[in-house]
Structures are given as structure tokens and as C-alpha cells.
């Protein structure tokens, strides 16, 4: 308990906790779950955008999208490394993802159906992700905070690229405009869900906030996201698919409707439009790649043996 108090005091003083230092088991476990889930989201998040790389409409757009998906894989790598400092290997985390024991962000269980979705994903999904992640640059665990700094920089670049695609679509031909509006319609509520259900009564959340693993409530972040996004949609000439959206002078933010939390829990349970396909794609990649990973390991072992023999 003295250790615990000292730990909490360091956190309260704004110090960073580093991997080799003492930490409560709950802190470690919560971080592993949170960082692992974030890493998995980056990995699975390659798939909905990867779905359009081969159909990108120009060479420039193809290159931008490739670079973006490459960044996501890179984010996954930073985050798995951050998790490894807590004593869990990348392979263990991967097995947990593939067996369904660990989750990834539900947003990636929605399909990308038109090119405008590449805009909507960048604008809304990355936008919501940044909203979640910017405060995490100040999180108490050092490796996680540092990974977040790099990630946020790239994500905000992605968000601008997504908005740029939306702009082109919204100001393009009538079909393009229709695609843009349709993409907004489909991604609006799932984006709001990305902040999670209201957490005012959750003890779990309170502990995470005390530990500075979680920096804001879900509702605060959601409100911030809506306040940022509504004027952007107006600028694009697109309509938020929620008639309740209205500026509320009193609270200094927009009113808006809650997403359908039944759908949210269905998707978490595995009943989103693409859950089965996303996890199958990752399982297949992992299984098909076994011979490749084994081959590299066998070669490395041979090299070591040869080196030992030579010494």
C-alpha cells in the first residue's frame, strides 16, 4: 500500500512510469489490454482501406492510400513494441486477437463500399481516433505516451488527406456528391460509437483516469468530436444524418442524438457486417504465413550454429 501510494503520487506529479519500474498488477493488465487492443485496431484497420488500394482512381490517390495503410502497420508495430515492454510478446497478443480473446475497434467491422469511404474513414474515423489519442500523449506510461506522439502526428496528416478526398467528392459530379453523402450517412453513428458508451457510472473508468491511462470521459470526447465535425460537414455541403444536430448556445456545443447502442453491442459480440471476414482475413494471413516465419527462424538458427562452430 505504501508502494501503491508512492506510485499514485508519481502519477499525480505528472511523472512518467517506465517499464522496469514497479507498477501495480492492475495498471499493467489494463495497459496491456488497452495498448494491445489499439495495436490490433491498427492491424485490422488495414483491411477496410486495403479494400480500395487496387481500385484507387488515380496513381496519386493510390500512392497516398498505400502510404496511409503502411503507416497503420507501422503504428501497429510501435504499439506492439510498447506492449512488449510490459512483458507480453507480439505473438501472444496476435494469438489473443485471432482467437477472439482480445478485441479491436468495432469501426473496422463496417465495410468500405465506395471510394468516398476512403474519405469518410480518414475524416471521421481517423478524426475520432485522434480525439481519443491526443490526450494519451500525456498518459502516465512512458513508452505508450511516446508512441502516441508519433502516431498522432501521422494520424492528423491522414485526417487531412481524408478530408481532401471528401472535398473532391463533395464538389465533384452529382454521383460523387451522392457517394460522399452516403459515406457520411453510413460512418456518422459508427464514428460516434468509437468513443464508447457513456462512462459516467463506470468504476473501471475512474481507476483508469486516476492512473492517467484514460484522460477524458467518453462523453467529453464525443462532444468534442461532434463540435469539430459538424462545421466541417457544413463546409463540405454535406448533411449530418441526424436531424437533432443543432447548436446549443447554453452548453457551447452541438446537441446530437445518441447512436444505437444495441447495434454497438451486437457488433462487439461479433455481429457487425464484417466481423467474420476481418478475423478470417487475419487468421488466413497468419496461417498462410507460418512456413515463412518458420523458414526465417530456421535460417537464423543455422546462421547461429555456423557462427558458434566458427568461433
Amino acid at each position, binding site marked *: 500500500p505504501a508502494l501503491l501510494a508512492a506510485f499514485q503520487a508519481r502519477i499525480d506529479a505528472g511523472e512518467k512510469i517506465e517499464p522496469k519500474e514497479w507498477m501495480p498488477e492492475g495498471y499493467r493488465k489494463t495497459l496491456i489490454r488497452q495498448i494491445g487492443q489499439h495495436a490490433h485496431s491498427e*492491424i485490422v484497420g*488495414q*483491411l477496410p482501406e*486495403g479494400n480500395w*488500394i*487496387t*481500385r*484507387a*482512381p*488515380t*496513381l*496519386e*490517390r*493510390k*500512392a497516398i492510400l*498505400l*502510404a496511409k*495503410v*503502411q503507416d497503420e*502497420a*507501422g503504428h*501497429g*508495430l510501435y504499439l*506492439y513494441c510498447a506492449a512488449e515492454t510490459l512483458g507480453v510478446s*507480439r505473438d501472444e497478443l496476435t494469438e489473443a486477437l485471432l482467437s477472439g480473446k482480445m478485441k479491436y475497434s468495432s469501426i473496422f467491422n463496417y465495410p468500405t463500399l465506395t*471510394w468516398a469511404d476512403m474519405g469518410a474513414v480518414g475524416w471521421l474515423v481517423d478524426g475520432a481516433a485522434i480525439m481519443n489519442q491526443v490526450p494519451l500523449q500525456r498518459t502516465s506510461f512512458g513508452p505508450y505516451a511516446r508512441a502516441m506522439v508519433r502516431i498522432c502526428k501521422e494520424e492528423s496528416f491522414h485526417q487531412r488527406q481524408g478530408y481532401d*478526398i471528401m472535398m*473532391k467528392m463533395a464538389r*465533384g*459530379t452529382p*454521383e*460523387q456528391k451522392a457517394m460522399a453523402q452516403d459515406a457520411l450517412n453510413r460512418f456518422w453513428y459508427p464514428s460516434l460509437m468509437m468513443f464508447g458508451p457513456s462512462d459516467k457510472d463506470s468504476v473501471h473508468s475512474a481507476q483508469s483516469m486516476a492512473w492517467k491511462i484514460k484522460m477524458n470521459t467518453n462523453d467529453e470526447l464525443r462532444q468534442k468530436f461532434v463540435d469539430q465535425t459538424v462545421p466541417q460537414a457544413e463546409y463540405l455541403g454535406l448533411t449530418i444524418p441526424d436531424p437533432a444536430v443543432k447548436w446549443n448556445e447554453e452548453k457551447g456545443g452541438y446537441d446530437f442524438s445518441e447512436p444505437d447502442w444495441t447495434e454497438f453491442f451486437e457488433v462487439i459480440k461479433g455481429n457487425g457486417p464484417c466481423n467474420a471476414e476481418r478475423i478470417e*482475413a487475419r487468421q*488466413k*494471413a*497468419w496461417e*498462410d*504465413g*507460418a*512456413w*515463412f*516465419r*518458420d*523458414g*526465417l*527462424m*530456421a*535460417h*537464423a538458427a*543455422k546462421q547461429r550454429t555456423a557462427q558458434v562452430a566458427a568461433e
Partner: protein
Amino acid sequence: MSVALDLDVALFEGLCRLGDSTLVLGHRVSEWCGHAPVLEEDIALANVALDLIGQTQMWLGLAGEVEGKGRDADALAFRRDVWDFRNLLLVERPNGDFGQTLMRQFLFDAWHQPMLKALEGSGDPRIAAIAAKAGREVAYHLERSADLVIRLGDGTAESHTRMQSALDRLWPYTGEMMMADDTDRALAEAGIMPAPDSIRPQWEALVTEVLSEATLKTPDQGFMHKGGKQGTHSEHLGHMLATMQWLQRAYPDATW
């Protein structure tokens, strides 16, 4: 005058051969996105695809300029049908397993790298400049693909078998890189592009060395497929273009 004109036609062809090959290979590599056997490979493949698409923009951009009919790189990439494509047959081979993808990459990189080196000495400064830029990227591609071929060839029994089988399948598509036709000869005589068979010694030296270190057997089959450089492709290219060109074809008036 008529000679200059013919040379421009040959130059357009030659540039399409380079740009279509990087485009088609870049597309194939990008098909892996999110499906690679390890995360590092997801990153590496995206990186290779990205480089190849960037090179496509330069080669086809220049091709459009040389042609002078107002077609830019996108018009060439997204609005031509199969018979106008000039890529090597090797690069349109389907991905197969990861071993086939890697072996295809290595066999191509081992040609691409010395080819770009030679193109740096082109009498056309625009070509020399593109080749210099692309060459730096491709040196890394070759380093990676050669290294992986060696490690997998000399890995487990299964990885060895897979790499050997990939090599045997792809081998008959390598000859086309070093085969010359009138276009190649015209460009070589004009000092604009190297003669294809001038690349062979370096290609062979590199391939022999890497395959030997990988404990793989160079196929002794002598037959070589050809036709890609002249626009006669396999059935695979049409399917690729249906995917690649879909949006441009469906919405010809849109800008993106």
C-alpha cells in the same frame, strides 16, 4: 525528320515498357496489403508498391509528354486496354503464395537495378534523372528480396521447396527482360536506353550468386515466354485492369 519521328515512337514504347512494368508489379504487390505473413512484411510490401507507383508516375508522365497527345500518366494507366500495355509478362504473374511473390520480386529487381543503373547514363537527361531517383529505391528492393530469397531457400525443407517451385514456375518469364526487338535496338543505337542483352551478364551473375547461396537450383529449362513488351499478354492482365481501371471507366467525367 522521319527518323526523329520514329525515335519518338520508340521512346514512347520504351517508356511504357518501364512504366507499365512498375505499374503492374506495384499493383500486384499492393494486393497483399494487410495479408502478409508478418507485420514487417506488410510494411515492406507497401513500401515497395509505393516506390513502384511513384516510378510509374514518372515514366508514364514522361511517356505522355513524349507522345504529345495530351495524355498524362493517369490517362495512360487507367484508360488503355490490355493490348496497349507494354509490361513484362513476369510482373503480371499472379501473386501465388508469398514465396512466389518474393521470387518474382527478386527476379525482377535483379534486372531492374542494373537496368536503372544503365539508364542513368541515358543520352536523354529526363530519363537519366528518373533512373537516378528510382535506382536508389530499387537498390533497397533488391537488397530485401535477395536477402529473403536466401533465407527462405536455405530455411526449412518446406520453405526451400516452396522457393524452388516458385523459381521453376517463374523462370520461363525471365527471358523477356533481356530479349531485344526493333524498338529496343532503335533506342540502344540512339543511346537512349541500354540494349536489353547488355543487362544479362549482371542479371545472371546476381541471380546465380543469390540462388546458390539460397541452395536453390537454377532451372535448366531454356524455353522463354515473350510478348508482353509488344502488347500480347496473359489472361491475367485483363482481370487486373478490370479492377484497377474500374472507377475511371465508370465515371469518366469525374476528377478525384
